């Protein structure tokens, strides 16, 4: 008999998390959209929603949430879409937050900074 490995992943599959949806409804979120929770999690909510709301007490980017939940960005977008539709979060693009006219550093520079940080 083959030995069973101890399962380390999650028992639930991603389609059960999204209820079978594989695409977010709108284009409200890109990778760096900042999400802020507007309400506290309710006990009847899906656990991912609860975690997102807790995480987003401080503004967090979509990719950050994705890394934190350990879920693909697509799934996170769908979940965020649900929360946005019920008004529990607000989303804003960093460019809006940074104010008009101030250019964002380009990604090559950010990468350089990242490497620099990692080498520390």
């Amino acid at each position, binding site marked *: *008999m083959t030995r*069973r490995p*101890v399962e*380390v992943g999650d028992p639930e599959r991603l389609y059960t998390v999204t209820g079978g949806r594989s695409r977010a409804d709108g284009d409200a979120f890109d*990778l760096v959209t900042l999400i802020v929770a507007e309400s506290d999690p309710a006990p009847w909510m899906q656990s991912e929603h609860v975690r997102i709301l807790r995480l987003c007490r401080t503004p967090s980017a979509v990719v950050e949430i994705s890394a934190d939940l350990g879920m693909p960005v697509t799934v996170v977008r769908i979940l965020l879409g649900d929360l946005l539709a019920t008004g529990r979060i607000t989303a804003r693009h960093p460019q809006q937050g940074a104010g008009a006219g101030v250019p964002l550093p380009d990604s090559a520079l950010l990468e350089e900074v990242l490497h620099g940080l990692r080498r520390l």
Partner: protein
Amino acid sequence: MPVPATPPQRRSHAPRPVSAAAQAALVAAAAAAGAAAVAAAPGAAGPWAAATVCAAWLCLAAAVVAGAGAVNRARRAAAASEAELRTLRARAARAAAESAQLADTALPALAARLRDGEPAARVLASLPPPQDPRLHRLLRLLAQELEDAARRTRQAADDGGRAVRQLALAADGVDRLTAVTLPAAVARLRDGSSADTVLGRLELPPDGRLRVLAEATVRELALGERRAAAAREAGARALSRVQAAVVSMLADLREMQDRHGEEVFGDLLRLDHSTSQLGLLTDRLALLMGGRASRAWNRPLPLESVLRGAAGRIAAYRRVRLHSSGTACVAGFAAEGVMHLLAELMDNAANFSPPVDEVHVYVEERTAGLVVTIEDSGLKMADAAMRRAEEAVSGRSDDLARLQGTRLGLTVVGRIASRYGLSVSFRPSSRGGTGVVVLFPPQVLSRPGGAGTGEPAPGTDVLTPEPSAPTAAGSGSGSAPARPAERAPLPAGATAAPGAGTSRAVPGPPPPAADRRVATPGGLPVRPPGRTMAAADRGRHDPGQSPPRAREAGDAGARFGAFAEGLARARPPGSPEGEARAGRGSADGAHRPQPRTADPGNTAPDPGAARAVPEPRTPGHPPAGAS
């Protein structure tokens, strides 16, 4: 002949005295008449007359004398006849008496004694022999015949008795064979004894033919059992490969879902769903064949995860509505079984309700445990169907031969329920269909914080699935909560994905002394004496003792790492930039753990934390570690 002789006898009796007196009177009268005639005769005629009278008287006298002589002779002859008659009569009386005695006394006595078994010769000798030789012969003949008849009767009775005894013995033997011997043999064979062992221990019937029959039956039964066991085992072994393939495929799919972008995500989810259904099918068959489930969990799973994991394995998962708000967790050792059981019940509910109706799953926490109700709005089950379903989930009908073709799922439910002490019952649902109520006893539950009600009873070990399951170091402990402590300190890299060890090697602050007592530096549970492994395991997961969030400590690097990681995850692999980031991401795995320590949802030392980082999971890792 005495009868005709009687009348002359009577006639000769009476005249005899009359005759003698008459003779004398006749002679005297004749003499007087002569004397008178002579006296009366004239003188001349006197002499002549005298002479004539004398002559006449003489003649008369002579005649009388002659007559008397004749009478005497006749009388003598009559007396002789009479004597003979008397003799004959006496003889006849004697003969009659003898035959009467023979008929009334001797023959019944003879018959009785012969029946009692005395030999005829002795009986005959003891009896007074009859005078009549013919009677004597008759008696002898009769005695002989009676003796023969008595002997034959005795012999027949003996034969009959012997036959009845043999029959009773044979019937007893058959009864014993069917009522005691064969059932015992079947029970022992089911327990896995070989035919020879069983025959050796069995009390075989003394009758040769029955013994041959019993031996042949036992050998045939043993052959059948062996064949069935071999088929089961072969099935289980083949299925375990399929199970391993399914698990590996699911892991691959999950990894692909992380790696690939939105354009293929829907297809990957569809594949994932099909594979999960395949997993349910193979697990069902494997459990029926006596095999094991395809997965094992060594940590308590939140009930929500369990319910969603169960729903995800059925075709109509979109129709399942979960209403769960509790924080209860299912103990690791029971999690997979519970998930399979719920999946089977949900599948059943979905299949037996209209394809547009939803299946509702409610969770209710009670003191007696946790109640999960699965309600559909299909047709009400008929009484007979409900009885059959109850029978199937009772776990009593363990025989594969009695399975109905399409009702395999409920049988598996019964097995799992009886293994973990769950109670499953059916009742009509208020929604119009059928409701299934599953009661989880406290020992299969556990609290995420390890506090209070979910404390597994000390008897938990009994409920551990497959106590004989391999617990070799390489695989970690499939159902860790009940494993002995010495199994716990395993090589860290063996249980978790590569890189996970390094992630655990960087815990935030050093754990407090209490924490060190319940977990090794590698993050594996240590069982203090007197505690169950489940309790130790829970202590290890206690979020109160987990390192504080790095984010709260203001670790900007962690956030940045998470950011980069998310980007790498989101970037489709086709784009060179994404590849570059992904490649660098794996290469820099040692730096990666920081975002994980920042993960508020996962307690840091948990091997499960590795799931936060999909990259280190090499493709096909779980089965590779498995087989």
